[in-house]
């Protein structure tokens, strides 16, 4: 099998469409860049992997936005996000270590991306807490219906309700509980 090389644009398209092979190639391509940076700035491979994965999530979620446009090299974009995330992490841990400034890699302003990401992060965190509160089978019923668009007959069968009306009532109750927990906590 010949080796495929992807352009920045290929990567963006792959991210948009969740293309497994492209995601994997992307992951491999810039991991060492971020690893090197984090490890050289008082991190280890574990924290580097966390930061890199979060970076790619920021990228992934930005790419999904309508009208997303990459105005610099993908490498620069990824590095800039990773650097900001790692700095944030260091500050959060109250690290007193002086930060070694990196001259090797160019950076672009990703303030908006980071701000959006943090907001989204806290929303997801909140939803996660509410869902944990809710427990099963509610969690799965709601996801099946609202995310995976299963119909009530399918849900009824999956969860062993005697008919789809019972499943519907259950789903309604679950949603009400989630609503209470999500908006009132």
């Amino acid at each position, binding site marked *: 099998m010949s080796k495929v090389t992807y352009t920045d644009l290929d990567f963006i398209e792959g991210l948009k469409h969740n293309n497994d092979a492209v995601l*994997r190639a992307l992951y491999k391509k810039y991991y060492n860049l971020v690893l090197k940076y984090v490890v*050289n700035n008082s*991190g280890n491979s574990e924290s580097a992997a966390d930061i890199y994965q979060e970076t790619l999530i920021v990228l992934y979620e930005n790419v999904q936005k309508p009208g997303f446009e990459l105005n610099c090299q993908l490498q620069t974009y990824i590095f800039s996000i990773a650097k900001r995330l790692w700095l944030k992490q260091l500050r959060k841990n109250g690290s007193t270590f002086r930060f070694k400034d990196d001259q090797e890699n160019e950076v672009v302003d990703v303030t908006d991306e980071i701000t959006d990401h943090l907001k989204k992060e806290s929303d997801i965190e909140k939803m996660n807490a509410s869902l944990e509160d809710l427990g099963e089978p509610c969690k799965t019923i709601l996801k099946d219906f609202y*995310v995976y668009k299963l119909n009530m007959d399918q849900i009824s069968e999956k969860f062993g309700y005697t008919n789809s009306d019972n499943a519907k009532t259950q789903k309604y109750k679950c949603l009400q509980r989630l609503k209470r927990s999500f908006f009132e906590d």
Partner: protein
Amino acid sequence: MRTTNLFDNYLFGTISNQDKLDFEARLKSDTEFALAFEKHRTLIEGLNQHEQRLNIKQIFATIHQQEFGKDAKIISIKEGFVKKHGKTVAVAASVAVIAVISTMTILSTGGYLLKQQSNAITDLKRDVNELKYSQDAIIEGISGLGSARPKKYAPANIEGTGFALNNKGYFITSLHMVKNADSVFVTNSVLERVSAKLVATDNALDIAIFKMENSEVLEKTIFPFSFNNHHSEIGDKVFTIGYPRKDIVYGEGALSSLSGYNNDTTMFQVSIPVNPGNSGGPLMDEQGNIIGVIRGKLSNAEGTGFAVKSDLLKQVIDSLKDETLKTELVLNTKKSSLKGLKRSEQIKKMQPFVFNIMVYKK
């Protein structure tokens, strides 16, 4: 329930054109209705966002595991430490690990080296000699002779953990970590790189006691630990905090045995995942008593750590010949100020007294 169904149908587009127009008209005229719909929409969007995030997280984590999982640690050493500190550190670090395991073997035979033919023992001998040599080096370094010597080797460093014995600047760490040391510095969230002098060692227990140059910050802070002589039992919950990396890391587990490697009664065995940098860290019980000093782990078993019993620490201090030092090193045996606190609170109060030890070598 009817309203919810209506919302769902509108969102899913399973609604007739006429109903859709009616729905949109109502959104404009009925603010309560519009608000309820907005909540519904936010919730559904949140559910989708949550699921999408879980999925993409899973995808990247899986790729990482498959592509870099096994080698992640090796990469870290290659890319990070060697580049930063030169080859010596990687070598020194591996020697340090051998030293932990090997000193345990010594202890298990009552302080005398039995004749054995395995390679590990051969290695061990050399390490023990090195250990002795390094103590000399430390003492030399302190007395000022060390710094006058020309630099023969590139500077390298090893890092680990130590914790305070009181708030007068005395702290303890593992001897194997500071072997061959030229100078030792400590740092944490409240201390900005303070240098420290070696004041006492115990070879058999692998402990070293230091005094830091300046402990003003700590003197103003309540000393959190107690060295209360109590009875620990198998199954007691224990925890440690330390610096296996530059950020402080918490680890918890249980006391798995009242003796260490090869039934060594000077140590506890604990089920805490410990890493090289954890050496010298405090082993705590739930009430905030120091019950041990983290020493090492079994090289071939994860989650099996060993800690030197803190009771023995008192004996070491009692046996010191320097009377001034002895009076300065009185350990707190009153109730720990950590007792009854939530774990996160305990850790907060402990943090100023747990140090990242930085060992510099010639």
